[in-house]
């Protein structure tokens, strides 16, 4: 990042021989990068003394944007740090992440969000955009200084980890935010229906005797927020949708022309609640893994555009926190380094559509579309990802950049892997490895 005192490391790069994938489709093309920007795009470029990335047989795409990353700092550096989490993001092809606010202290003040943003800049792996919480301390009562936070660059506000339970508070928040260039995002969970819940309320949960998390608890809040958007004329982004009925509700809301967007995680399109049969808390996540019917509905939603974006909900937890009885273990799983491979293995769609769900559509929702998810045109910022589309691989938890190892994807064949990531004109990932400055 040139403005972080690292200007000297910006590379002059030519990406050659790849297939460019962006909003306008796929085509053969070389890309020349200088001073952090794309300066030339053509079917074939001459190469001088620049660094060459050989992308023959590979896809060259805009860098990914994760709407939903838990970096755990400040508060729980044993699980993840802004440095380790943003490095994991870069390895996963992300050039921007939205850092969730459930830190300690909460990202509910200018001081905390500026601290997070500064740590992200210092790490330099990708752009770290701190979200702000909707309510102070994520307690669901008083609004945070949304305008002050917006003034220092916060574009997405959420109490993620829990939903805003009080209908009147959520209505006020939507009305207040509607005056400003920001978006509220909701973790949809009616808390009174999920007390002590460990897994999806369904057949598997009944036989295991584990407390159930009913689909209804999500759907009621999805429905409420859609109706609040209808009332207030504001907009809302619905985080990590997991049930078939939620997808249907969003589809109806979009058909009504409401400003509702939604995301789904890689794990909610690939893993069912049956994974809990071994009582391994790595598979405990919130909202929980659901049924095959839900998975198919969420996949359909992603394919038809009802669900705009794939977001990881990357949620690191140290080993000793997951090696607890299911009712005590914290929910959450890693996702940044596996998102592309899981998404590719789970969705039957074009690369343009898939990359859109990982890049330019979440960039628009996050309010960072001026810098991320940009088309391959001279003058655009060089935030780029190079993918081997057919590489089959399996995860080695110990080899992940994350400080934690709670990946649920250890026995799944993944398809497609990020080979190179260019952030702000600098190669931060080369041949699948993070490049230390």
């Amino acid at each position, binding site marked *: 990042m040139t403005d972080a005192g690292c200007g000297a490391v910006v590379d002059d790069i030519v990406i050659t021989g790849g297939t460019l994938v962006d909003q306008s489709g796929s085509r053969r093309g070389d890309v020349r990068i200088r001073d952090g920007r794309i300066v030339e795009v053509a079917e074939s470029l001459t190469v001088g003394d620049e660094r060459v990335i050989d992308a023959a047989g590979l896809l060259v795409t805009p860098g990914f944007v994760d709407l939903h990353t838990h970096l755990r700092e400040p508060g729980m550096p044993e699980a993840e740090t802004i440095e380790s989490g943003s490095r994991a993001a870069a390895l996963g092809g992300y050039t921007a992440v939205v850092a969730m606010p459930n830190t300690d202290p909460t990202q509910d003040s200018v001081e905390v969000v500026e601290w997070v943003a500064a740590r992200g800049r210092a790490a330099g792996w990708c752009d770290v955009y701190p979200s702000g919480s909707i309510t102070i301390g994520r307690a669901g009562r008083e609004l945070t200084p949304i305008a002050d936070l917006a003034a220092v660059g916060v574009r997405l506000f959420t109490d993620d980890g829990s939903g805003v339970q009080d209908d009147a508070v959520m209505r006020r928040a939507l009305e207040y935010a509607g005056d400003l260039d920001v978006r509220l995002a909701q973790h949809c969970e009616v808390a*009174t229906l999920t*007390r*002590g819940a*460990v897994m999806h309320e*369904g*057949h598997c*949960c*009944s*036989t*295991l*005797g*584990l*407390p159930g998390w009913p689909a209804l608890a999500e759907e009621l809040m999805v429905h409420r927020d859609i109706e609040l958007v209808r009332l207030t004329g504001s907009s809302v982004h619905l985080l990590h949708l997991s049930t078939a009925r939620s997808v249907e509700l969003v589809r109806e809301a979009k058909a009504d022309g409401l400003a509702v967007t939604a995301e789904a995680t890689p794990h909610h399109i690939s893993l069912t609640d049956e994974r809990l049969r*071994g*009582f*391994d808390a790595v598979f405990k996540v919130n909202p929980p893994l659901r049924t095959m019917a839900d998975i198919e509905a969420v996949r359909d939603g992603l394919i038809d555009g009802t669900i705009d974006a794939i977001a990881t909900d990357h949620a690191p937890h140290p080993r*000793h*926190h997951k*090696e*607890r*009885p*299911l*009712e*005590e273990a914290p929910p959450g799983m890693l996702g940044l380094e596996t998102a592309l491979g899981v998404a590719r293995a789970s969705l039957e769609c074009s690369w343009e559509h898939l990359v859109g769900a990982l890049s330019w559509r979440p960039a628009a929702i996050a309010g960072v579309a001026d810098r991320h998810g940009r088309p391959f045109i001279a003058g655009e910022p060089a935030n780029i990802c190079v993918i081997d589309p057919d590489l089959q691989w399996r995860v080695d938890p110990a080899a992940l950049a994350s400080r934690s190892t709670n990946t649920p994807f250890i026995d799944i064949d993944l398809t497609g892997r990020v080979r190179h990531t260019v952030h702000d004109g600098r190669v931060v990932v080369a041949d699948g490895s993070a490049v230390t400055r």
Partner: protein
Amino acid sequence: MTAARRHVRSIDEVGRERIIKLLALTGHMHEINQRPVPKVPALRGRVVCNLFLEDSTRTRLSFDTAAKRLGADTVAFTGSGSSLSKGESLRDTVETLAAMRLDAIVVRHRSAGAPWQIAQWCEAAIVNAGDGRHAHPTQALLDAYTIGRRTGRGADLSGLRVAIVGDIVNSRVARSTTAIASMLGAEVTHVGPSTLLDPRLDVQRCTDLDQIIGDVDVLYMLRMQNERMDAAPVPPGGEYTRRFGLTPERAANIRTDALLMHPGPINHGTEMTVDPSTMPQSAITDQVSYGVAVRMAVLFDLLGTGEMEEES
């Protein structure tokens, strides 16, 4: 030895063949328990740890007695249940115990699945003495043994009508006893208000006790699990007892050759307003008595070598 062979964690995992063997072995253990000195050296030198991380008196005493009657040494580890509150993970606790070279760990935990987690972290044989709302296989074994012995049916319960009444959804006893009764051929019906039944369990359900009470061969009353409830599933006051309690009026409708069972401890005045000790149908004291024999059979099956050795 397969993984499933090394443990007794759920009825389904143990399987029908081994269940029948355990019930036969229970009969042998019960004979030993009738002797003037009810003790054999079958497990001499073996160490059994009772890891009870949820309150329990009866089951813990039952396992302790069973181990000692077989000559095993026992160590006890009790705790409030939440390893989180102590800053120690369950794995840390188990690895500490594993270092003591225990042969078996009898575990009770308030969270479902704890016996499976523990099995990953140590080499000991695991006996599930109750995990959350999930399973309580030794209770199920003693229930099956009690039914088989009192009815003279042995391990063949085919055609017996078993009604389990009360807080099914929160009950590990209901899950495990339903599993074993079904496995041995009985027809199980869950009885209670819909708030206490689970529509996703594969059994018949009935919300009117009076409709079936005169037909059942086994009336199994559950304890109301008040400690596991939120958003109270029944109204306060005596309505539950009026609808589903064993009142003197209902007790008069039970067939004379039927069995009345309860896993204990009884909430007198809630699920029962009669004194079961006055009822000839009651098998409740048999359940307690056979409980020791069942746990002896389970421990011997896991830790014994070959046939039972006789002391004399």
